[in-house]
C-alpha cells in the first residue's frame, strides 16, 4: 500500500474524529452493546436500522417541512457488476457499503474512499444461476472495532472499521457449509450462496446460511463469536428428528429442504430471540416433499431462534407445503400492538402476518395488495383458505396473483412508530405458473417449475400496522417492479427510490411528494439516514438490472452509484 495515502487517510480520520469529538455529535470509537440497542439516529448501525427491523430514524433535522431543500452532497460509484442490494451502515464519520465481494468505507463528508476491502471468490466458484447472485450483499453488521461482512462464498470477514484490515476471516466450509461450484467441473456443485447480511447482538454475530435455492440445501442460522467467528450454536430452520413439524417432511426430503433465511431478521433483547423469515421449500415443484399436501414446516415460515443456545422456540409456516415459491423471507418486524409484542411481516403472499412474538401464535393476516387469487384468505389458525388447485406437471401453467415475486419481495419495508404506518415496497404483478419434471445435474436439483410474469404496477404504500388499512399509495403506472426499499423518520418523512430510479422523499402521513430526483438507474436497496458533523444526510445506493425481467417498461440501463443528500 502507498504510504502517503495511508497517512492522509489517517489524518482525515483523525480530523473527523476530533471534530466529532469536540461537537459531541457522533459516537466515535468501538460500537458497544448500548449503541447497538438504540433506534437509528445519529448513526445507522444495523442494515434494518434497529434490532426490531423498523428502518426508522429518530432524526428530525430533515423533515416534511424542509425536505424540498435537499441537495446532492456527493456521488460514489462502486463500479457494481450486479445489483446494489446493500443497505449501507454509518458510524464514526464513515459510510460502509458492500458490493461485488468488496467493502468500501466512504468518508461521509465527500464520499471519498477511506479504505477498500476486497475478497476474491474461489477459482471454482460458480453454478446453476449462481451468477445471478454473485456480488449481491444485503447488509453488513458493525460491532466493537469491526465491520462484519459475509462474502458470497460463506465466509465471515471481520474488518477493522478504521483500518480496513481483516481481523479474521471465518470459513464455514469446515462447519459443513460448502459454496456452490462450477457444475461443469464439480461432481457435487451445490452450496450456500450467501447474499444475506449478518446481525450484531450482544456477544454474538448472527450469521444466516442462505442461498438454499441454488441446488437444494437446508437453511441454518448460526451464532458466531465476534472475536473469531467460531460457531457457538447452529439453528436448523427445518425441524430435525424429534422437533415439532419434522413429520411434515417425507423421509429424506429435509436434506434438500430449502428454507434459507435470506434476509436479515430481527432480535428481541428481552425474549433473546432472533426472528427470521425463510425461503421456499426445495424444489419448487413439491412432488418430492409431499406434493403440496404436507406442510413442510420451517420452509416459507417465520422461525424464532433462542439466541442463548440456538434452540428453535417456534416455527410458523405461512405457506404450508409451498408449491408457489412463496417464501416469506422478509424481516419480521417487532411492533408493540395493544401492548403485545407482535411480529409483523408483510410478505410475498400478499398478506401482512401478525404473530405473537413469544409463542408464534397466529394473530391475523391483512391483505395489502389489490389482487390475490391463490387463496381466499387465512383462517383463525393462520392456515391459507381455499388454495387454488396446483397445475399438472408437464401441463399448461395456471394464472395466479401475486407472482412469485410477491406482494413485497426482498426490498425492505419500514415502520414508523409516530405515524403507526408500515411503508411497503409493493407490487401488483401476477404470473402463469407451471410444473415440469425435476432435472438433476451435478447434484444440483432444478426447480421443476417455471413462471411467466404478468406485470402490474409498482405500488409504494403506507398501511396502518394495527388496522391493516391502507393510508396512501404511490402507483407507478406502467412501471412494473418494486421500489428499492423504505426508510422513515421522526421528521415525518418516508424515503424510497422507485424501480425506475426516482428518489422520493414523501410526507410519511399522507404520501405527498416533497422532494424528487431522477437517479438515472434502478434501486434495489433501502436508504439510510444519519448525522454527519451536525448535518443530517440521507444515503441511497442504486444500481443493477432495471426490472426483474425485460427492461423496456423501465427504460433504464445498468448502473452503479451511492448517492448522498443533505440540506
Amino acid at each position, binding site marked *: 500500500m502507498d504510504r502517503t495515502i495511508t497517512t492522509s487517510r489517517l489524518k482525515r480520520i483523525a480530523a473527523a474524529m476530533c471534530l466529532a469529538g469536540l461537537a459531541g455529535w457522533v459516537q466515535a470509537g468501538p460500537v458497544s452493546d448500548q449503541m447497538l440497542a438504540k433506534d437509528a439516529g445519529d448513526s445507522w448501525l444495523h442494515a434494518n436500522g434497529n434490532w426490531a427491523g423498523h428502518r426508522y430514524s429518530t432524526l428530525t433535522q430533515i423533515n416534511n417541512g424542509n425536505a424540498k431543500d435537499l441537495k446532492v452532497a456527493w456521488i460514489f460509484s462502486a463500479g457494481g457488476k450486479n445489483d446494489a442490494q446493500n443497505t449501507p451502515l454509518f458510524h464514526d464519520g464513515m459510510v460502509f457499503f458492500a458490493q461485488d465481494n468488496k467493502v468500501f468505507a466512504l468518508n461521509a463528508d465527500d464520499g471519498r474512499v477511506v479504505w477498500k476491502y476486497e475478497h476474491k471468490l474461489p477459482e471454482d466458484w460458480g453454478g446453476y444461476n449462481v451468477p445471478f447472485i454473485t456480488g449481491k450483499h444485503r447488509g453488513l453488521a458493525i460491532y466493537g472495532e469491526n465491520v462484519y461482512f459475509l462474502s458470497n462464498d460463506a465466509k465471515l470477514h471481520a474488518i477493522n472499521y478504521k483500518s480496513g484490515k481483516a481481523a479474521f476471516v471465518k470459513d464455514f466450509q469446515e462447519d459443513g457449509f460448502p459454496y456452490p461450484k462450477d457444475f461443469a467441473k464439480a461432481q457435487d456443485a451445490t452450496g450456500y450462496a450467501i447474499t444475506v447480511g449478518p446481525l450484531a447482538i450482544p456477544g454474538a454475530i448472527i450469521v444466516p446460511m442462505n442461498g438454499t435455492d441454488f441446488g437444494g440445501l437446508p437453511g441454518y442460522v448460526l451464532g458466531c463469536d465476534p472475536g473469531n467467528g467460531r460457531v457457538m450454536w447452529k439453528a436448523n430452520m427445518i425441524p430435525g428428528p424429534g422437533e415439532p413439524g419434522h413429520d411434515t417432511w417425507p423421509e429424506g426430503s429435509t436434506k434438500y429442504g430449502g428454507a434459507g433465511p435470506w434476509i436479515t431478521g430481527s432480535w428481541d433483547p428481552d425474549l433473546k430471540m432472533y426472528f427470521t423469515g425463510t425461503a421456499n421449500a426445495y424444489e419448487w415443484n413439491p412432488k418430492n416433499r409431499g406434493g403440496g399436501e404436507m406442510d413442510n414446516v420451517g420452509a416459507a415460515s417465520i422461525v424464532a431462534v433462542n439466541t442463548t443456545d440456538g434452540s428453535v422456540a417456534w416455527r410458523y409456516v405461512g405457506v404450508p407445503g409451498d408449491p408457489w415459491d412463496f417464501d416469506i423471507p422478509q424481516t419480521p418486524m417487532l411492533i408493540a400492538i395493544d401492548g403485545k409484542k407482535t411480529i409483523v411481516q408483510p410478505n410475498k403472499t400478499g398478506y401482512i402476518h401478525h404473530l405473537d412474538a413469544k409463542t408464534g401464535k397466529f394473530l391475523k393476516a391483512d391483505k395489502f395488495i389489490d389482487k390475490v387469487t391463490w387463496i381466499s384468505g387465512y383462517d383463525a389458525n393462520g392456515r391459507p383458505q381455499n388454495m387454488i388447485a396446483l397445475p399438472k406437471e408437464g401441463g399448461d401453467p395456471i394464472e395466479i396473483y401475486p407472482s412469485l415475486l410477491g406482494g413485497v419481495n426482498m426490498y425492505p419495508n419500514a415502520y414508523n412508530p409516530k405515524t403507526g404506518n408500515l411503508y411497503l415496497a409493493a407490487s401488483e404483478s401476477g404470473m402463469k405458473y407451471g410444473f415440469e419434471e425435476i432435472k438433476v445435474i451435478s447434484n444440483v436439483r432444478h426447480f421443476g417449475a417455471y413462471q*411467466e410474469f404478468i406485470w402490474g404496477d409498482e405500488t409504494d404504500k403506507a398501511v396502518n400496522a394495527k388496522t391493516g388499512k391502507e393510508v396512501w399509495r404511490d402507483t407507478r403506472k406502467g412501471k412494473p417492479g418494486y421500489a428499492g426499499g423504505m426508510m422513515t423518520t421522526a421528521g415525518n418523512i418516508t424515503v424510497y427510490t422507485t424501480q425506475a430510479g426516482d428518489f422520493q422523499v414523501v410526507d410519511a402521513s399522507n404520501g405527498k411528494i416533497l422532494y424528487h430526483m431522477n437517479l438515472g438507474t434502478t434501486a434495489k436497496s433501502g436508504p439510510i439516514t444519519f448525522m454527519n458533523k451536525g448535518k443530517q444526510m440521507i444515503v441511497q445506493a442504486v444500481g443493477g438490472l432495471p426490472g426483474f425481467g425485460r427492461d423496456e417498461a423501465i427504460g433504464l440501463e445498468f448502473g452503479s452509484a451511492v448517492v448522498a443528500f443533505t440540506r
Partner: protein
Amino acid sequence: MPTREPDENRYNEWFDEAGAMSRVLCWVLGLLVTAMLLAAAPLRAEEEPPAVNPYSGNEKAIREGKSWFRGVCAACHGGRADGAGERGNGADLRKFNKGFREFVHTVKNGRQVPGRTQGMPAWGAVLKDDDIFKIGAYLETLAIEGANWKEAKHE
C-alpha cells in the same frame, strides 16, 4: 465466422488442471469419441453442429425440449423465453437471430456479459448435444419477427 478463441482457452485450462490420471482417461475418451465419429454418429461432440436443427418441427423432440427449457433455462430466460426470468434477465430467445449453430455454441460454452457478473454458464459438459438440439427445436416454435434459426448470416 464467430471467433472460437474463448472456448479454446477453456479447453486448454481444463487440460492444465487435469491430473495425469484424468489425462489418460481423456485420451481413452478421445479415442472412443473418434471411434464413434468414424462410425458416422450423426451428433458429433466436438465438431460443428449441423447448420440447421435436425429436430426442427419434430413434435416429440419439441415436447422434450420444452421440458428442459422450463425446468432448467426458464429461471433466467423466463417461461415465455422473453428474458423475464425470476433469476435476472437472460436474452430474449424469441428474437434469437444468430442461427442454429451459434445457438448450440452459446449453450455449450456459455456467454459472459462484459462488466457484469450475471452471465450464461457453459452447459457443454453436462447437457447432451441432443438435448440442446431439442431445446432449440422448442425455442424455434416461439420465434417472433426477426428471429433466425437457420444458418447464420455472414458477418
